[in-house]
């Protein structure tokens, strides 16, 4: 009798176990992911919004430092986009754009740019800059390319009032790239200014640029040189490889400047570990210990900021000018780092051309950069050691004389 009870009890327990195992699948939350970026078809505004919102969860890399409440954005705007489905039309395009502008307004990523197929472009960082009366664009309200005496327009027009001697100006008419190197008049200070970070490719492909850069690099090891001025004002950045090319000239051993991290999952805070950000010296690199002055302004962005931050780690560097733009997260294609630029709202693919059309595209960083001091300067900008803001009256003096107070400050910091 007792043995029978044992057997029956065992069988009952076995059935309970099997039953429980069958029930287990209902104990989990639904494990469904969204589609890969750019693969969700959008037939109405609701779907466009949902695709954009989901892709931002996955691809935006600054959620850990961004104050935007993305869930609250969904709660507020999902019903608004639902309502837009009712009366689609031309007027809706501007309403959609207006809503997107509100949605992305507070994002800290200062590379961020949202383009809609309807022709609207939204840059939250630029919008913020325009609201700041001290923003250099507001101060000058003019062609920023002609702003400084280091710009190509300045040199084309006002060469005779240049600060430089032994100068070499290279200008790529095709790309618009320019590079100016030389020695500051009456001093032994080297000067290098350039429009964008495409030094590596221009050095390889443009003989004039090569001469201009060699003019700088050759003199760098000249014992008579008393210091160096690197001018990245008005420079919006460019190729990451230029970091080694330029900074690598000043060092003989690898220089750790900070850390980068990207995403390894679709959750907002699914981050990779922080990877060391390293500048590798050039074969011609020297252990440069003389003063280096980096000129920055509110238009110095991306690689310009990384350059200022990297040079700041050398023993004798000062930054002069204004706080940089605040866009220093490197970019590349989304799939490499599970983060970065993406298109959303797949409208369809043209049978004739094979081109896929999207309602919108987002340009955004693939990785977050943290400086060696632990600060993330995204959305804030890198502050100078010597703050020297300039306005039109500081540069354009009477009798058509032009002056560069920031450059003059830089020159004053280099011993003669």
């Amino acid at each position: 009798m007792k043995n029978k009870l044992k057997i029956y009890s065992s069988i009952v327990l076995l059935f309970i176990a099997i039953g429980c195992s069958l029930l287990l699948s209902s104990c989990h939350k639904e494990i469904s992911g969204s589609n890969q970026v750019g693969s969700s078809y959008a037939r109405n505004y609701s779907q466009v919004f949902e695709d954009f919102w989901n892709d931002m969860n996955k691809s935006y890399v600054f959620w850990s430092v961004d104050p935007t409440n993305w869930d609250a954005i969904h709660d507020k705007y999902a019903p608004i986009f639902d309502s837009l489905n009712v009366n689609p039309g031309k007027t809706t395009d501007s309403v959609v754009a207006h809503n997107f502008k509100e949605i992305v307004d507070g994002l800290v990523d200062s590379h961020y740019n949202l383009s809609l197929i309807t022709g609207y472009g939204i840059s939250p960082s630029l919008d913020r800059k325009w609201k700041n009366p001290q923003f250099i664009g507001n101060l000058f309200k003019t062609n920023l390319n002609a702003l400084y005496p280091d710009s190509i327009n300045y040199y084309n027009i006002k060469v005779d009032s240049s600060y430089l001697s032994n100068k070499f100006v290279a200008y790529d008419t095709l790309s618009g790239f320019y590079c100016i190197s030389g020695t500051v008049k009456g001093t032994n200070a080297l000067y290098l200014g350039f429009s964008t970070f495409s030094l590596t490719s221009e050095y390889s492909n443009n003989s004039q640029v090569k001469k201009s850069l060699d003019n700088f690099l050759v003199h760098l090891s000249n014992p008579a040189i008393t210091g160096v001025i690197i001018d990245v004002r008005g420079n919006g950045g460019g190729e990451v490889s230029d970091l080694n090319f330029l900074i690598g000239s000043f060092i003989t051993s690898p220089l750790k400047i900070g850390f980068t991290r990207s995403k390894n999952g679709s959750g907002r805070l699914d981050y990779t570990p922080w990877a060391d950000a390293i500048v590798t010296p050039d074969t011609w690199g020297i252990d440069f210990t003389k003063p280096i002055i980096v000129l920055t302004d509110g238009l110095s962005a991306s690689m310009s900021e990384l350059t200022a931050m990297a040079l700041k780690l050398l023993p004798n560097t000062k930054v002069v000018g204004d706080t940089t733009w605040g866009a220093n997260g490197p970019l590349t294609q989304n799939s490499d780092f599970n983060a970065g630029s993406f298109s959303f709202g797949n409208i369809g693919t043209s049978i004739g051309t094979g081109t896929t059309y999207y309602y919108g595209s987002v340009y955004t960083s693939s990785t977050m950069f943290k400086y060696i001091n632990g600060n993330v300067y995204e959305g804030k900008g890198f502050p100078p050691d010597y703050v020297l803001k300039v306005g039109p009256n500081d540069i354009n003096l009477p009798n058509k004389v032009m002056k560069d107070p920031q450059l003059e400050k830089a020159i004053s910091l280099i011993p003669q």
Partner: protein
Amino acid sequence: MINKQKIGIYIVVLLLFTFYNTGMAQVVSDDEIAPLNKEEPINSKFSIGFEIGANINYLITNVSDLNATKYTSMKGVNFGVPILYKANDWFDIKATPSILEKNYSMLRTGYYTGIYRDTKNTYLQLPVMGECSFGGEKIKGYIDLGGYAAYWNSSQIKGAMPNILNQPQYGTYINNTNTYSSTIFQDYNAYNYDEKYQFNTIVDNRIELGLIIGGGISYELNENGKIYIDTKYYYATTDQQKNYQQGLVPKYNETYAFSVGYLYQLKKKVSTKKAKLTKKTTITDDSINN
């Protein structure tokens, strides 16, 4: 929607209630009764021991929205101290405070081959199970059913990923074949890491609850102890992440563990006078204590 945490708790409570009501009794035979006026040890209802084993853990999630990415299982080890309460000759209640690894790996494929992240998690786990045994005198089989609570104690991550800000020296190229790169590490230097994972209080849910189904075979060495081989399936019912955002894809552990162990039956000193009085009767905990 079934509340998953409550299910686990209900099952454990139900089992405990069931076993409590099965009559926690033990028959003492004539042979077990010692001479008068002496205190002699008899087998207690409690046994304690140790077990050690290996496991394989799966992270149950969905990565279909990630490009060329998949999760795979990883092996781990487990160690536990089983404490068994013998309710009767076929029902036991077992708790096994354990240290258990629940490891998994994330891999990328195709062009991204080489990017990986091995995650080794250590959990402090307390499973409580009802155990029903069957079989002969020496060799017995048993089935376990219960629930567990665990604390995610530590995590070590090891892997490789592309490093966007560690470019090769100017003039040198990782891929110098003038052809398209076949893997990402021909285009980027790798960043290799092996570091302690820093828990994020917003993201990481360090309390895990779950259900257990298991079974095994024990062999009684003597009246003092037995050895056993044991297999268990741990099914987490709680997400590894806190619900910190809308639309979060959940992550659950599923662990298959295999252990070998030894259980020693604790002894209890019983007054033989009292034992005499209870000859051919049932000795219960209450009667001994009175």
